[in-house]
């Protein structure tokens, strides 16, 4: 529910995981630097840069040590409007997957390690794996 409106902030977070960043805003540089950790720059015309939060960009962020709370805090701190709840849920879900499967050396080969046995069963049944 829209209760917070911060016109001085530079970011509009869209429900389709795209982010619109105002270049002419005083907080632009700081926001850009923080978005770079977990969002992909899609286009950068003169006034509004477009970013996208994707599963890959979130994976990269997780690999670099970013946390769910950190990503959400960034979005919330710079967003003009309330961040869509579905995007927050997606971020938690996607980043929560990081590290649940690990590919490790085992002798001369590789071993796939999972936190939960059910996950390995799922992978075994997956026709594409």
């Amino acid at each position, binding site marked *: *529910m829209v209760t917070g409106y911060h016109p001085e902030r530079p970011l*509009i977070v869209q429900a389709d995981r795209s982010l619109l960043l105002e270049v002419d805003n005083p907080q632009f540089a700081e926001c850009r630097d923080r978005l770079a950790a977990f969002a992909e720059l899609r286009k950068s015309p003169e006034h509004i840069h477009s970013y996208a939060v994707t599963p890959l960009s979130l994976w990269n962020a997780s690999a670099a040590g970013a946390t769910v709370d950190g990503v959400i805090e960034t979005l919330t701190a710079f967003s003009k*409007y309330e961040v869509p709840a579905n995007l927050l849920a997606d971020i938690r879900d996607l980043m929560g997957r990081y590290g649940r499967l690990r590919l490790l050396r085992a002798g001369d080969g590789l071993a796939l390690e999972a936190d939960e046995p059910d996950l390995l069963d799922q992978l075994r049944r997956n026709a594409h794996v």
Partner: protein
Amino acid sequence: MSMQLVQLLQRLSAEERGELLRRRGLDAASGADLGKLASKLADPGSLVAAFAELDQFQHLVLRWLADQPGHAAAWAALGRELDGRVPPDYLENALRELRLWGLVDYEAAPAPGYVATYGAVATSLPQPRGARLRELMANLDSETLRRMAMGLGLKAAPTRDQRERQLLDSLGNSDFCAGLAGRLSEPARDLLEWVRSEGGWVSQGHVKSNPVTKVTGLAAPTIWDVGAAQKPLDPLTELVHNRLLWEFREYRWDSRVSGYVVPREVEQALSGRSLFDTGPLQPPLLERAERARGLLPNPVHLMRDASHLLGFVTTGRCEFRQQDGEPYQRSLRALGKALQHPDAGYPFLLWNLCRASGLLHGADTTFTVAEAGLADPRTLYLTLLGGWSRTGWQGDYSLARVGNPRGLRMRLLELLVSLPADTWIERGSLEGLCAFLWPALFSPRYPGAGQAGDAALSSLLHLALAEGEAPDGTKAVLVPRAVQLLLTKQEGEEGGTLPPWDERWTVQPDRCVVVAPNAHPKALLELWRLAQIESNQGAAVFRLTAASVATALNRGMSPDAILKLLRGRSATPLPPTVERLIRDQGQRFGRIRVGAAQAYVRTDDPALLEELQRDRKLHGLEWQELAPGVAAVVNVGPTAAIEVLRKAGYLPVAERPGTQSPDTPRSNLPPLQVRQLQHFCRVAIRDGLRLSVRWSEGGRSRRAVIEPQELKDGHLYAYWPGKDEEVVLSLAAITLVSVAGGEEAGW
């Protein structure tokens, strides 16, 4: 002990009568004549509106009274029937309310206390699904009732009314019904239990699926034959014979049986339950939905999308049906796709909201926006909610006839304000509360209700109610505190919950125009005139394209006007790419001009056309020169133009499209003359005769001696010795012909 409404009105104090008039939507003057007032209050439409205000318990009290002799009972009898199910003050409060609605009168005293209603109430009271014995017996004659009574082992009463009462009393008696059921065969008992488990009503078709018997109909005509009771009967017939099951007809005059029903009185007698056991007597508690999660409604997005609909309609992109002026479904679906909303019904909701609220008004595909509704975000939101409250099925047609109707949806909005805010509640418990507070409108047990309430709740999910689900799958709803504030905040109060309109947009060099989610509706309307919507996931993104600019130009906007409009709200200077696009399209605009013309005139000699245009006798013709020797006649058709030219002394001919040579349609000559000319020419060809011919060409008369060669398709092919060339003459153009050196034959 039967009550007359006038008696109730006489017993009311002046203050109570004033309250009654206010509740029933009548002015104070109506109270002057009690007789006339009673007539108005007893009007079925007025009663239906009053019933819509009553809760479940009040409905049950009225239904119980309606079943009593004379629609009245002793106070103690009501007390016995209720048997402590509700506290005394709760009962008295309910009756006081009924009294102030003009529906019931009472005196709360052991003796001579009473409680009563009147005939109009009993007749108009909405009935839940199921059949009552009185209705089932309404069309039965006295002899049939007598046989029924005898079939049940009763000594039939002497008169029809008495027989009806006898059956009512017997079949409404628990012991009697238990006795009947006890004497049933096992298959009949099983069949009865099956019908009761199906809600007490089964259709004729549904009977086939019963697990007990293959019989799907009665063994008529022996059902009325008392002697038939001696024979073994099939279970269905046995139940009907014992009056535990009744035939049900959709229409009274229909000979076909629609189904079979256990009357409510029989059901209550068999189950031992009272009428007051058929539903909650006090408001049910709302159940919290633990750990429910869901999406909250966003009024900002709703208003943004409503603005999109306004733009979609007012820029002519919506197609409308001719017969009723409503939009084609395909048009609204196209809008839904453009808005990228997952709910296919969303654009239809927007349309209904904008129309019902008066935000969009007009007809016959021409619509305008009521700008008063766009004053500020809260005004627009409340306008849309007001429109929502007026759409959809309101519960009863009668409500529309009563002044100041509070339909189903308005009540729902009023309820929202009183619910616990920001708390997930089980949707079922909210529906149960609504069904208790206004059963005639919300309870699925009443025909016409239930579905309307469900539809109202569902449509409110986009507007003011959050929808969610608990981990166990239970549906839940939540009323945001912000919505309650919006609904209840007084003018001038500090602290809004909606962001103010954002009047600006950003035009990008890639020709995108980005508008904030809280953009002013007018900004969105303006963009719909110029650009195509590309994305709508919060901020709306439009794109200026060659096609969108062309559309704006075609609607009458000039390139400068387009640029001015864009600059007017742009937070930054317009990018050169955008200006270039608009200027380029502006230059292309108008290079092809199309006009309307009814006829054209083509002359072989351009000078002749100029002569025609200068001729005073032809000043009535409006010329539009198209090319040398060709001009359109704008104001008259070909036949009239020919007539005018001929009156002016010229010799025009009508030109068939696609031909190069003038050719007068054959219809210009009488058929007999054409045949005669054809014959003449054939003879000349056969005999090798030379012909002296006069014909009309380009408005001038020409003459020559020719040697005809061939006659084909209304044309004479000939050799012109004087010019040593072939010539083709239309028979219709020939005005004089003769054998060269012979007598002339003229036309």
